[in-house]
């Protein structure tokens, strides 16, 4: 299992590093967009997949990162400075939105976060002096480190890739700590979690705030990718798109967002050839996937890994162990 994972990471790294060298402009843009969406999906997977707290405000949190960069960079702030500001704002608003999560659950929480996304959208559209209103902000510069500029699409792709690696590594680090286990305990049995000492308040707030902070990172990288943003990019539709990535990929599975982000971003592009039918085909594909793979696309991944390992190591399941009573008797 471990060997396969290492192999997967190596192959993935080579593809991600070399593939862009041969991609034309539009495909390069799609690859960059997929990475940005991956960052956002990882954030939502932490909040929803691991901690079980639904958020339909992910695009709203994304806008904090995007607008922070778009507003601050022209003022002479380096891109990374704008990104940090956006992430901090997203983190803090994530904390604020975490509070309702302490009182309401499931679809009620969905309504609360949905409302928040709409409010963010309205503020972005109406606070014209800051956000440019519905005209948005154009000519967003890409980052530069002294003489090194990430101006070309290819250079900016590698810049995004660097942040993606950071996000993946940090999410892995958080989710494999006691926090990750505490998040899962809340999702699996909230009452039991509290009885074994899990502070629902602390962990739910953190799950919301960290997930939102990742959305801020994604948003900050998103703005210079398109070089233009307007409030229409951060509507509820987009939040639902992230929800789809996480659910289709596999809730609460580390591999989930990778599969989800790739499929939700690239499948519509592949289907473009079918002209007017592509949305219908895409929706049908989503419905079928959910019917036959309710745990998400990771089921295909798991199936492949099982096939590979079984062939090499014989049956995957050891014989059933004896009942504990028998063990106790034997003592």
């Amino acid at each position, binding site marked *: 299992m471990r060997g396969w994972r290492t192999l997967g990471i190596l192959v993935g790294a080579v593809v991600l590093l070399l593939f862009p060298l041969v991609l034309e402009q539009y495909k390069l843009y799609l690859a960059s967009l997929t990475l940005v969406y991956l960052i956002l999906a990882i954030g939502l997977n932490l909040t929803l997949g691991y901690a079980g707290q639904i958020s339909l405000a992910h695009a709203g949190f994304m806008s904090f990162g995007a607008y922070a960069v778009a507003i601050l960079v022209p003022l002479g702030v380096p891109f990374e400075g704008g990104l940090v500001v956006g992430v901090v704002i997203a983190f803090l608003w994530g904390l604020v939105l975490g509070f309702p999560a302490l009182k309401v659950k499931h679809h009620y929480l969905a309504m609360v976060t949905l409302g928040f996304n709409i409010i963010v959208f309205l503020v972005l559209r109406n606070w014209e002096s800051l956000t440019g209103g519905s005209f948005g902000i154009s000519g967003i510069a890409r980052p530069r480190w002294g003489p090194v500029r990430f101006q070309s699409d290819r250079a900016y792709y590698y810049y995004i890739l660097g942040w993606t690696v950071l996000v993946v590594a940090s999410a892995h680090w958080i989710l494999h700590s006691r926090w990750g286990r505490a998040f899962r*305990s809340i999702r699996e049995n909230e009452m039991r979690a509290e009885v074994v000492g899990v502070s629902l308040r602390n962990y739910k707030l953190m799950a919301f705030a960290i997930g939102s902070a990742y959305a801020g990172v994604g948003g900050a990288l998103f703005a210079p990718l398109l070089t233009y943003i307007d409030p229409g990019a951060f509507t509820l539709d987009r939040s639902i798109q992230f929800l789809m990535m996480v659910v289709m990929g596999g809730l609460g599975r580390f591999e989930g967002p990778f599969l989800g982000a790739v499929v939700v971003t690239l499948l519509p592009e592949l289907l473009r050839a079918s002209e007017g039918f592509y949305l219908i085909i895409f929706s049908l594909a989503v419905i079928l996937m959910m019917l036959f793979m309710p745990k998400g696309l990771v089921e295909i991944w798991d199936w492949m890994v099982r096939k590979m390992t079984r062939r090499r190591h014989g049956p995957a399941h050891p014989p059933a162990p004896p009942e504990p009573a028998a063990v106790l008797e034997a003592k």
Partner: protein
Amino acid sequence: MSLLEIRQLSKNFFHLSALSLVSLSVEPGELLGLIGPNGSGKTTLFNCVTGVLRPSRGHVLFKGEDITKLTADGVYHRGISRTFQLIQLFPEMTVLENLLMAAQERKGTLFSRLLRRDETEEMDRALNLVEYLGLSGVKDNLAANLSYGQQKLLDFGMALMPDPQVILLDEPMAGVNPTMIKALVTHIQDLNAQGYTFVVIEHNMEVVMSLCRRIVVLSQGEKIAEGTPAEIHDNPAVMDAYFGT
């Protein structure tokens, strides 16, 4: 001073009075039995003590500190743990993960739990416990895939994991086969001898009478009797509560 003291505790669900003015105390090192017919308020009492439910009136004192208003995680941090009549586990975690989960919040701060990775001490304890409870063979299985009896034992193990001062057991023997009941009784006596304090809700009279030196009887939310097994056995009010007239 009593370790755990319940004073005039009442709990109403709307117009239904689930507990009314129940008082009892638990001494350090004791093994107290709590019995009563179905619906007499035993589990509600546990829920009120452990912060799962907020009592309507009355107080819960632990080592003299009023813990009535604490949430469940606060009660856990004071050193009170419990099991559940309807088993409550983390189904998608392995047996070992369930045990580690039961101890991870015991020490440190929120941020030290993010930064500190070392878990050898907890892992040693968890491995000792699976050995002790006879769950070694299934330690890497998901909790959802265990048999009923094994889940019951895991629930018990989770209550022991944080090294608590008082353990509240809610029908630990219900639905468990006779062999495992024997094992559980031995475990409880064993741990009690080591100094752990227990309060046990149990329907199996034979077990309660042999296990506990003192028994409290609830009926329809009120305490109707308290005493040694012999006294309870001969108490007409208890017979009345169970069999009615």
